[in-house]
C-alpha cells in the first residue's frame, strides 16, 4: 500500500499557470485513506467499493445515460447508476482492477466533471428519516380515512336507527385501526414529550401527546366499558385526524428543511487541496496539503494556494493576499520573503520552506478571532423559546382547571373538555407560524441563489437598516478592468493596447491578464526575447505580425512607471506604462472590475430605506473611487481597515442602535461577518467564511442582497399574520372549549383548519416571489 500513499507527479507542471489539472488531483483520490470520505466497502464482496459522486454539467436524462455507458466501460467498474434529477452517481468498483481516477477520467472524457460526494452518507441518513416520516404519515392517513368511514353512521343515524351490535362493531373496528396510529404514527410526539419531561423542560409536543393519550384512553373505555364513569362516547375519528394533520405539518417542514440542507452540503463537495512536496532525492511528489509538515520544501505552482506560512527559497512571484488582508493588488515575493497560508500564487512556480502549519498559521489565528466574535452573537431564538414556555404551562393549567370544574358533572365529559382545550389551543398553528413562513422564505431564497444558514437570521435581516459591503470580491471582481488609455502623439490607444497585449501575453500577472483581455484575440504584433522582471514589468522585442511595415523590431517595456523610465504624476489609481526606445508611449489606467449590478444593487437597497456603507482593507483612494462608481456616500466609505477596525466600526454602529448586515467575501471578513446582526458571504469565498455567515450567495449577482432583505421583510410580515391568526383563534376557541361548547372533533377540525391556514399562508411566500427571483 505504501507506494500508493502519494502518487508521483508524472506530469509536467500545469501549463499557463492554471490550477492543477483534475487528473492530477484525482490521482490523490487513489490514496486508500481518501476513499472513506466518499466511498465504503460493499459488505458481501471483498475488495469492492461503493462510491458516491456528483457530476457537474448534467442537464437531462440523456446525460445520465452517457455517463453510465462511459464509466461502465472502464475495467473494474461493476455497476453504475446515475440519477438524472439528483446529478449524483453511485459507482461500484473493485480495487483490484481500478482506481477512482480511472473512472473519474472516463466521465470527464465524455464531458462531465465528477466530484467526490462527501455528503452522500449524510443524505442517506436524511433519506432514511424521510422514509420513516412518509411511512408514519401514510399509516395515519389511511387509518384516518377508514376510521372516518366507521364514525360516519354514528353522526348521521337517528336514535334507534342502528342496532347496538352494529354500533359496537363499528367502535371495535375504529379501535383496531387507531392502534397503529397510536403505537406507530404518534411515536415521535411521545418520544419528544418524554425527553422534555426527563430534562424538566416543556415543548409543544407535551400537550399534543397528553391530548392523544387521553383521547385514546377515554375512547377505549367508551368502547369496552360503555357503562363506566367516562360514558360511551368515542373520539377515534378526532384522534386519527389530528394525528394525521400534525404529521402533515411535520412532513412539510422536514421536506423544506432538506431542500436547503441538501443544496448547502453540495457546496462542500470539492477536490482535496494538494501540493508538490520535494522528496529527499530532489524530485517532487504530489501529496494532500494536510500532510505537509514544518521544514518541508514544497513547490507551489501558479494558481495554487500556499499550504502554510513559510519563506520563499527559490524563484520570484506575485501573490494574492486579498483573501487574508483585503489588499487587492498583487504583492511581489522574492527569495527570502515570507508568504502566508491561504494566499494564492499568481506568477511563477516557487519553492517554499514551510515554517508554520495548521493552528500556528495566520489563517488559523483569523479563524480563532472569528470564533470569539461568533459567541457574542445576539440570539433571538431564545426569546421565542422563553415565550413558548409560559404559554404551554397556561394551556396545561387551563386544561386541568376545565377538567376539575366539569368532573363533578360528568368525568367522561370533563376529560374530553380537557382534551378539547389541549387540542384546540393548536400548538400546531403557533409552532408552525414562524418556521413554516421562514422555511418557505428560505426555500424561495435558495431558488434565487441565496442559501440560509440559520433560519432565525431571516428575522434579524428583516430589521436591518444598514448594509456594510466589503470591496474586493464583493462589489468588485477579483480581476482588473482597463480604464482610460493615454498615448504619445502619433500612436492610437488601440495600437498601444495591441502592442502592450503582445508583451502581456507572456506574463501571468493580473495586470497583464487584464490587458490581454481588453485587447481581445486580434494578434497584430509578435514578440521575441521576452523577459519578465518580477515586481517591475515585462521587456521584449515587438514587431508587426505581417512583417511588412516595421521590419525592425522595437525593444519595448511594459510595467511600472519606474521600470519604463518615465515620470508620471502620482495618482491614486493603478497604472501600467508602455515605453519604447524613444521613451514613454502609453499609460493604461487599471480599474477594479466592478460587478455589473453593483450600482443597481446599492440603489435598490437605498430605495428600501437602507443605508449602504463600504469598509475595505484596500487603500483609501481606491475605496473612494469604487464608492463613487456605485453611488455610496463618500462619508460612508472607509479604506485601510484591518479586520479589527471593521469589527470596531461594526460594534460602534450597533451601539448607536443600528441593525447591521455585512456582505463579505474574504476570510478577513470572518470576524466581522460573525459580529454583524446578519451576514452574507459570496459563494466563491473560502468555506470557513461561509460557515460563519448567515447567508451564502451562490451566484455572482449582488442584486440578491436587496432581494433577500425584501423577502425577509415579507417573511416576517407573514409570520406576524400567522401569529396574529393563531393568537386570535386561540383567544376565541379556548374559552369555548373550557365552557364545554366545543366537542373534541370540532376542536380537532378547528386545529387542522388553523394549521392549514398557517401553512398555506406561508406557501404564498414561495409562490409569488419565485418568478422575479428566476428572472
Amino acid at each position, binding site marked *: 500500500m505504501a507506494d500508493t500513499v502519494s502518487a508521483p507527479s508524472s506530469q509536467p507542471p500545469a501549463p499557463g499557470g492554471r490550477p492543477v489539472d483534475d487528473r492530477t488531483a484525482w490521482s490523490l483520490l487513489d490514496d486508500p485513506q481518501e476513499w472513506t470520505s466518499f466511498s465504503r466497502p460493499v459488505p458481501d464482496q471483498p475488495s469492492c467499493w461503493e462510491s458516491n459522486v456528483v457530476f457537474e454539467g448534467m442537464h437531462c*436524462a*440523456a446525460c*445520465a*445515460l452517457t455517463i453510465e455507458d462511459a464509466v461502465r466501460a472502464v475495467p473494474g467498474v461493476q455497476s453504475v447508476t446515475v*440519477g*438524472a*434529477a*439528483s446529478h449524483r452517481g453511485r459507482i461500484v468498483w473493485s480495487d483490484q482492477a481500478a482506481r477512482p481516477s480511472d473512472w473519474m477520467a472516463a466521465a470527464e472524457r465524455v464531458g462531465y466533471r465528477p466530484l467526490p460526494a462527501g455528503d452522500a452518507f449524510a443524505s442517506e441518513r436524511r*433519506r432514511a428519516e*424521510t*422514509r420513516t416520516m*412518509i*411511512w408514519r404519515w*401514510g*399509516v395515519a392517513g*389511511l*387509518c384516518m380515512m*377508514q376510521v372516518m*368511514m*366507521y364514525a360516519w353512521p354514528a353522526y348521521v343515524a337517528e336514535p334507534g336507527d342502528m*342496532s347496538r*351490535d*352494529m354500533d359496537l*362493531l*363499528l367502535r371495535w*373496528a375504529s379501535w*383496531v*385501526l387507531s392502534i*397503529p396510529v397510536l403505537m406507530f404514527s404518534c411515536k415521535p410526539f411521545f418520544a419528544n414529550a418524554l425527553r422534555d419531561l426527563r430534562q424538566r423542560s416543556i415543548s409543544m409536543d407535551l400537550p399534543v401527546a397528553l391530548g392523544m393519550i387521553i383521547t385514546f384512553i377515554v375512547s377505549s373505555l367508551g368502547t369496552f366499558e360503555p357503562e363506566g364513569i367516562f360514558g360511551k362516547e368515542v373520539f377515534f375519528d378526532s384522534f386519527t385526524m389530528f394525528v394525521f394533520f400534525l404529521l402533515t405539518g411535520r412532513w412539510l417542514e422536514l421536506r423544506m428543511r432538506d431542500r436547503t440542507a441538501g443544496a448547502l452540503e453540495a457546496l462542500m463537495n470539492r477536490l482535496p487541496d494538494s501540493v508538490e512536496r520535494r522528496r529527499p532525492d530532489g524530485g517532487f511528489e504530489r501529496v494532500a496539503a494536510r500532510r505537509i509538515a514544518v521544514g518541508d520544501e514544497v513547490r507551489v505552482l501558479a494558481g495554487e494556494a500556499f499550504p502554510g506560512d513559510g519563506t520563499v527559497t527559490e524563484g520570484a512571484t506575485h501573490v494574492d493576499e486579498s483573501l487574508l488582508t483585503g489588499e487587492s493588488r498583487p504583492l511581489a515575493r522574492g527569495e527570502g520573503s515570507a508568504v502566508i497560508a491561504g494566499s494564492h500564487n499568481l506568477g511563477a512556480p516557487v519553492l517554499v520552506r514551510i515554517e508554520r502549519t495548521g493552528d500556528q498559521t495566520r489563517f488559523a489565528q483569523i479563524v480563532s478571532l472569528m470564533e470569539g466574535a461568533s459567541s457574542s452573537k445576539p440570539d433571538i431564538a431564545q426569546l421565542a423559546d422563553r415565550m413558548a414556555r409560559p404559554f404551554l404551562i397556561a394551556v396545561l393549567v387551563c386544561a386541568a382547571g376545565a377538567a376539575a370544574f366539569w368532573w363533578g358533572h360528568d368525568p367522561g365529559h370533563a376529560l374530553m373538555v380537557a382534551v378539547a382545550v389541549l387540542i384546540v389551543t393548536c400548538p400546531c398553528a403557533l409552532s408552525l407560524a414562524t418556521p413554516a413562513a421562514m422555511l418557505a422564505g428560505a426555500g424561495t431564497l435558495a431558488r434565487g441563489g441565496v442559501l440560509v444558514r440559520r433560519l432565525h437570521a431571516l428575522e434579524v435581516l428583516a430589521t436591518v437598516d444598514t448594509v456594510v459591503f466589503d470591496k474586493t470580491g464583493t462589489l468588485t471582481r477579483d480581476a482588473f478592468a482597463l480604464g482610460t488609455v493615454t498615448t504619445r502623439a502619433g500612436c492610437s490607444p488601440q495600437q498601444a493596447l495591441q502592442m502592450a497585449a503582445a508583451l502581456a501575453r507572456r506574463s501571468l500577472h493580473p495586470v497583464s491578464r487584464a490587458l490581454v483581455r481588453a485587447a481581445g484575440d486580434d494578434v497584430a504584433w509578435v514578440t521575441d526575447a521576452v523577459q519578465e522582471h518580477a515586481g517591475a514589468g515585462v521587456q521584449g522585442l515587438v514587431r508587426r505580425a505581417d512583417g511588412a511595415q516595421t521590419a525592425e523590431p522595437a525593444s519595448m517595456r511594459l510595467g511600472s512607471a519606474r521600470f519604463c523610465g518615465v515620470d508620471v504624476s502620482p495618482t491614486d489609481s493603478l497604472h501600467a506604462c508602455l515605453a519604447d526606445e524613444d521613451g514613454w508611449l502609453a499609460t493604461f489606467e487599471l480599474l477594479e472590475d466592478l460587478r455589473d449590478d453593483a450600482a443597481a444593487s446599492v440603489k435598490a437597497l437605498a430605495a428600501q430605506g437602507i443605508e449602504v456603507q463600504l469598509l475595505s482593507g484596500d487603500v483609501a483612494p481606491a475605496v473612494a473611487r469604487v464608492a463613487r462608481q456605485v453611488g455610496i456616500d463618500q462619508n460612508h466609505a472607509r479604506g485601510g481597515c484591518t479586520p479589527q477596525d471593521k469589527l470596531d466600526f461594526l460594534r460602534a454602529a450597533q451601539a448607536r442602535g443600528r441593525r447591521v448586515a455585512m456582505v463579505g467575501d474574504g476570510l478577513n471578513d470572518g470576524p466581522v461577518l460573525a459580529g454583524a446582526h446578519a451576514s452574507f458571504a459570496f459563494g466563491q469565498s473560502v468555506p470557513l467564511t461561509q460557515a460563519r455567515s448567515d447567508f451564502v450567495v451562490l451566484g455572482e449577482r449582488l442584486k440578491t442582497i436587496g432581494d433577500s432583505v425584501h423577502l425577509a421583510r415579507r417573511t416576517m410580515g407573514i409570520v406576524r399574520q400567522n401569529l396574529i391568526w393563531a393568537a386570535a383563534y386561540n383567544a376565541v376557541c379556548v374559552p369555548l372549549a373550557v365552557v364545554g361548547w366545543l366537542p373534541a372533533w370540532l376542536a380537532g377540525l378547528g386545529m387542522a383548519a388553523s394549521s392549514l391556514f398557517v401553512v398555506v399562508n406561508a406557501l404564498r411566500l414561495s409562490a409569488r416571489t419565485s418568478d422575479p427571483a428566476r428572472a
Partner: protein
Amino acid sequence: MDILFLLVPLSVVLVLLILGGLWWAIYRGQFEDVEAEGQRILKDD
C-alpha cells in the same frame, strides 16, 4: 344488514393489506426519484 358483520371486519383487514402495500412501496424507494421511472423508457437495456 347482517352482511355488514362480515364486511366491516373485512374492511379492517383490507386497510391493513393496503398499509402493507404502502410499506413495500416506501421502502423500495418508490417515492424517492419519481422522475426516473418516466425516463426509463429512454434507456437501452
